[in-house]
């Protein structure tokens, strides 16, 4: 008995499956397959593969050749097979030699494919270009000069007005125009015309239709849910898009087939499997999922062994030179190691890069507020930059006047020749220009940031009250375990990136600051922590910050390996001297970090002098011809939540997020909960976005960025008639090994278990295996793996981890991922 079709319900569900990526400016990493997160990882992947036709693992041949190369360990494979299947031998045969079909069409698309098989027409090529052009023009944020006639109307209203006040039409036929102007017209009416009377096919038809351009549909759906994600807001609903698209289809069918066609339902046969039917068992998917496990555990196993073997003592309190906080970002992993190697007396910490202060930010002259905290949070506070308005240079090449024939005539005969010179300079001596997206432009070094409460503006509180500040500083310090033994200077260093010719620039910045640089947050929290009133409250909570200790905000540019300190207002003489020493240290560490990063770059010789390499790295960030200014989060695989001593002596090759946490400060797991609540979706989201963009660069990733064309400033597409390409471009993911995140928590397993069960949405990440979780006993270093709801003891198969003395030599030796090493501390 077919259930009656409820269009709102169906579209509501459909929205859930569409890509949820916001416009480029607000690029925030998330689990690409979020719609399947209620299922266990492998089951979810199989479902997505069968229903939507996504590639969800590496191809079988990749795994087999990695096994031949020794990148998947035989021991680990055996163990995985024994654990999962019991009969290791039989399954090993299948894994190594089994033959399976290469193409398996997904279910989506099959129903709508009937148009082509029955009438030989390509409906997509008749409808898509018009549809994309109109949606794109409607949403456009500033490329077009002559804008879509909006007048504050919603998409459908605007289209109706446009059609009724124009002699030309977007449709081929007059009757379609009439249909559009009928205010009673519903999606169901149109489906009846296009699909026919079989209501049970309507839902599937809509999925087929929307997944034939999931990029555009996803963008519309996101703008519908978060209108503020476009600075120049638009009223559009996915329902509008669907209605309009059905009209275009109806129109095109009438035009092409001259009204002698039957609705598609007439031709639907049983071969078309209903989209939401349960999926059948597939041995091929089982086989690749086992390979995936073996691939992941080959790496995890060495990491866990390394952590067990590592022995580093904490620094004596009196000897501390300075303390520095960084973002948990995996790009800080190596920089912290270099700092510590140069100055063994310093302490480094990692915490999400918004440093526990959430607010909107308005720079001098800015007409909008920018959110500076993790994407799901909506702050009540506003922080304003004060000072003189800075001039951001202009580049006439982006001027719209060059596009009109009259002004263009002047432009091409004058500016044209200047362009040739400019291109020449850009090729031979690249430098910072107005076109560069630089983290340093986020806030002016010499401007003032006032954190004190000032007023209420547009429903937001400008500045913080003292108590509000104290709560945030306390929460930050306790969560990372920095509650005593303060050094004279505590640096709080946010991060950002610089790049040019890069529409994905927001994906380079700090995810915890909604794709912006973390400099303002670093300044705000430092100013709060420096307030005597705040410190007084903290003393009552048991945190004694000595008067001689000063917090200093800063920003590290991860592309250029540069650091800025926002210390203009700090005047202690003592500070200046000590800080000057540290600046030299930072510079050296930055050089070394640049050198370490350079091993992945073909164009730089890693054995050269560190400072020379650093210069080249800087040039790289401003070169318009460089599609890989940095490699972002590529190769990320781990997240370690624990004291620095746990992992300080292990070489993790920039593959780990590091969140500082001291179980002694948090015996019952209160702060741990806050950490995991953020780390699972943030680090897990980054990790899974890289995973899926890597394994399916066509449908889940953005493909190579070289042919990308910017659409309306909110997305990129290939060419001018293509679908929007959400996900990450291949240049960001090509060196990434698609493994799930291994989250290692230094706390007792029973506490960790209790902690993750506190919130349903956090627990889902672990119980469904989207992030692998290991607890390491802080006293005994015993390991426990979280599986099927409980922690089970784990014994690494790796026997020994090699110790290395000379990191430089190692780094210059290969471009590929390194295994885990122990660092010789002497």
């Amino acid at each position, binding site marked *: 008995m077919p259930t009656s079709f409820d269009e709102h319900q169906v579209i509501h569900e459909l929205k859930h499956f569409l890509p949820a990526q916001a416009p480029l400016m607000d690029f925030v990493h998330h689990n690409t397959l979020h719609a399947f997160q209620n299922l266990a990882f492998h089951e979810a992947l199989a479902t997505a593969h069968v229903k939507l036709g996504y590639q969800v693992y590496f191809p079988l041949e990749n795994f087999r050749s990695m096994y031949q190369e020794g990148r998947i360990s035989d021991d680990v494979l055996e163990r995985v097979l024994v654990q999962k299947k019991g009969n290791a031998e039989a399954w090993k045969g299948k894994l190594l030699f089994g033959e399976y079909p290469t193409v398996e069409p997904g279910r989506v698309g099959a129903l709508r494919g009937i148009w082509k098989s029955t009438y030989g027409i390509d409906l997509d090529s008749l409808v898509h270009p018009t549809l994309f052009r109109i949606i794109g023009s409607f949403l456009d944020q500033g490329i077009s000069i002559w804008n879509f006639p909006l007048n504050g109307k919603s998409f459908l209203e605007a289209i109706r007005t446009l059609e009724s006040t*124009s002699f030309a039409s977007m449709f081929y036929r007059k009757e379609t125009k009439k249909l559009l102007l009928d205010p009673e017209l519903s999606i169901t009416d149109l489906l009846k015309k296009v699909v026919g009377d079989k209501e049970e096919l309507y839902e599937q038809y809509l999925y087929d239709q929307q997944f034939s351009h999931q990029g555009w549909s996803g963008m519309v759906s996101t703008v519908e849910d978060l209108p503020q994600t476009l600075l120049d807001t638009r009223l559009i609903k996915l329902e509008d898009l669907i209605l309009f698209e059905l009209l275009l289809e109806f129109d095109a069918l009438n035009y092409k087939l001259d009204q002698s066609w039957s609705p598609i339902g007439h031709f639907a046969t049983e071969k078309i499997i209903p989209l939401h039917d349960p999926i059948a068992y597939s041995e091929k998917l089982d086989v690749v999922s086992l390979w995936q496990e073996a691939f992941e555990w080959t790496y995890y196993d060495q990491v866990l062994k390394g952590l067990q073997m590592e022995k580093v003592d904490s620094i004596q309190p009196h000897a501390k030179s300075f303390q520095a906080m960084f973002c948990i970002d995996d790009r800080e992993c190596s920089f912290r190691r270099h700092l510590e190697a140069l100055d063994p007396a310093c302490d480094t910490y990692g915490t999400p890069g918004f440093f526990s202060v959430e607010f909107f930010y308005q720079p001098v002259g800015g007409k909008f507020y920018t959110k500076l905290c993790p994407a799901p949070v909506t702050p009540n506070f506003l922080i304003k930059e004060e000072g003189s308005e800075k001039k951001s240079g202009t580049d006439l090449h982006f001027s719209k006047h060059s596009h009109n024939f009259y002004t263009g005539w002047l432009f091409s005969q004058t500016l044209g020749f200047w362009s040739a010179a400019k291109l020449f300079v850009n090729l031979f001596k690249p430098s910072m220009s107005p076109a560069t997206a630089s983290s340093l432009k986020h806030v002016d070094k010499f401007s003032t940031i006032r954190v004190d409460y000032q007023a209420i503006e547009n429903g937001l509180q400008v500045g913080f009250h003292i108590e509000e500040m104290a709560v945030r500083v306390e929460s930050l310090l306790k969560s990372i375990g920095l509650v005593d033994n303060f050094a004279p200077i505590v640096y709080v260093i946010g991060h950002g990136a610089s790049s040019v010719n890069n529409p994905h620039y927001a994906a380079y910045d700090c995810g915890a600051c909604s794709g912006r640089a973390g400099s303002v947050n670093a300044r705000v929290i430092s100013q709060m922590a420096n307030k005597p009133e705040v410190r007084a409250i903290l003393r009552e909570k048991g945190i004694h910050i000595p008067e001689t200790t000063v917090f200093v905000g800063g920003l590290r540019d991860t592309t250029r390996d540069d650091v800025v300190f926002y210390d203009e207002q700090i005047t202690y003489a003592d500070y200046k001297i000590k800080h000057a020493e540290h600046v030299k240290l930072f510079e050296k560490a930055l050089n070394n970090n640049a050198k370490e990063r350079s091993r992945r770059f073909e164009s730089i010789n890693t054995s050269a002098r560190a400072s020379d390499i650093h210069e080249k790295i800087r040039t790289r960030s401003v070169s318009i011809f460089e599609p890989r200014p940095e490699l972002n989060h590529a190769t990320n695989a781990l997240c370690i939540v624990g004291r620095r001593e746990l992992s300080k002596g292990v070489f993790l090759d920039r593959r780990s997020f590091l969140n500082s946490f001291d179980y002694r400060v948090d015996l019952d797991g209160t702060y741990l909960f806050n950490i995991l609540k953020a780390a699972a979706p943030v680090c897990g989201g980054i990790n899974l976005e890289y995973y899926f963009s890597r394994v399916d660069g066509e449908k889940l990733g953005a493909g190579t960025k070289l042919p990308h064309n910017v659409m309306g400033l909110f997305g990129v597409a290939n060419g001018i008639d293509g679908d929007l390409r959400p996900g990450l471009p291949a240049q960001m993911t090509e060196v990434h090994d698609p493994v799930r995140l291994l989250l290692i928590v230094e706390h007792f397993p029973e506490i960790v278990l209790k902690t993750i069960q506190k919130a349903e949405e956090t627990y889902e990440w672990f119980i469904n295996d989207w992030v692998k979780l290991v607890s390491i006993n802080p006293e005994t270093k015993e390991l426990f793996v979280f599986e099927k709801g409980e922690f089970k003891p784990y014994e690494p198969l790796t026997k020994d981890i090699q110790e290395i003395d000379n990191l430089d030599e190692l780094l210059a030796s290969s471009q590929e991922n390194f295994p885990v090493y122990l660092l010789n501390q002497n």
Partner: protein
Amino acid sequence: MNLTLHLFIWVPIFGFLVSLILPKKNETLISVTAFSTLAIQLSLATGFIAYWLFRGAKTIQINDLILFKNEEYVFQIDFLFDKITAVYLLVGAILTFMVTLYSRYYLHREAGYKRFFNTTLFFYVGYCVTTLSGNLETLFIGWEILGISSFLLISFYRERYLPVKNAVKVFSIYRIGDVGIILAMWASHHLWGQNITFFQLNNAELVHEHLQTHSIIGVFISLMFLLSATAKSAQLPFSSWLPRAMEGPTPSSAIFYGSLSVHIGVFLMLRTFPFWENQTSVRILIAALGLLTALVATGIARVQSSVKSQIAYASIAQIGLIFIEVSLGFEKLALFHFAGNAFLRTYQLLVSPSVVSYLIREQFYHFEPRSSSIERLLPIKLRNTLYVLCLKEWNLDSMLYQYLWNPMKWAGNKLNFLNGKRLMAYFVPAFGISYYLINENQMNVTALHWLPVFFAGIGLVLVFKSFTQRRSIRLSWILVIMNHFWIALAISLNEKFDSFESVLYLSGIMVAGLIGYLCLQRLFQQEGKMTLNRFQGLSENHPKIALIFLLACLGLTGFPITPTFIGEDLIFSHIHEDQFLLAGIVSLSFILDGLAVIRIYARIFMGPNYRTHATFSNRYF
């Protein structure tokens, strides 16, 4: 001096050939070869032009190789160097040099690294041959190279659907341009009674004298030049191909479709200016076309919401203005404008990804709700009508389908009763009988008058069928070959029969046809039977067959690698100046030949690979 002029051709050819044999993996070697070639060319060009200017900038004309000759027809390679060539050569060398340097890093790790530089150098060879050419025949060689290399550059991401589709689309419009040149050559051969060089066109008296007696044919020639230039420079009504050519990596779009390729039409108009200088009506037409294009393209550019299509239409508008300048005789201004526009659009396209961060920052600091545009002044109904038309690109893209391809497909579909067996059963014997009858002189005079048209018509029907049928690949291939035979038969009947000329024409066809057929046989053995119904994307699995088949396709379409190229030109020399119908049929055949063959190549070797892509997932990427 002459030697240096030759170097401008040989340096790029040498660089291109070297780049072909380099190992695929060695990016450094490939890119160094490419930009050294361009560096050498650039310094040679700079030095030469400086010296040439110093010596008084006299036009240099070289009569080079004679490739074919009979009593009334000569196919000769000629070169010419004057200030037009100087500007085009210099701008081309500067831009290509900078863009190869740019691409060296930009394309790092891209799967088609070598292919990109091969194709770019090949394109550059075509550019140099065209701009240095001294007569139409030589120009046509370069012109053809530009066409095929454009096809390869647009379809650089050959495993995707849209680039391949658009590459075929652009190729088909280029093909129209090609036929414009062929017909111009045909008519001018009859006008002058010999093959004329561009240098001779500068002789005003000579031109004037010939045109006075043949004013209609003079106008016809001018219109054919205009047709070719319009197609190649994306003027109305062909404009919509240019934004759709932006499918390759950004630097290739920047240099070719932003600048060099699209200004070649302007070059043709500049080159032939002395010919139509005194045809006022033609000059008015050119100016009007340019003006109309400038207006329409500006409107379209103003509503674009994607950055590359906006730049493309802005560039088209400027080229429209350059057409006006050329028609007014402002040669120097046009050259200056060309250089400026080429540099500007190349740079704008290269930095187009930066537009996001730049304009969003501008919006963040300087946002004004709905900044008003000049169109506000229009009455609402007119304003919205224009807006919709601009958004739909004035239906330019669908019009090409509606008025060009759809009628052809319609005609082809009417021929559905002709299946492979019937074709063989009717047309092969028919050919044999006709051939026999002609040889034995069994025809009466009236029949002789109409038979060429009839035979050429049969050839045209065959190629229609080849272009439109969706099933058998081999049938399509054979039909194209048969088309050439019928044309040869028709022409040999038209004038004094010379078997050597026929052999010259058909030799390339035979060899290329056979090689292509063998490629298909081999492919079918390995892959099973295929149809033209969908893209197969097999170049990845069979790169060698793909290459050989591509060469066979080029041979079959009369590309300058076989004697057929000269043969095609020769064929036209045997069509009388009053036989417009025959000329029309034969040239239409040539357009369709090219399209049919390229379609076969694209369907088999390009598009999403059928092994890794299910039928319905084609469009995602």
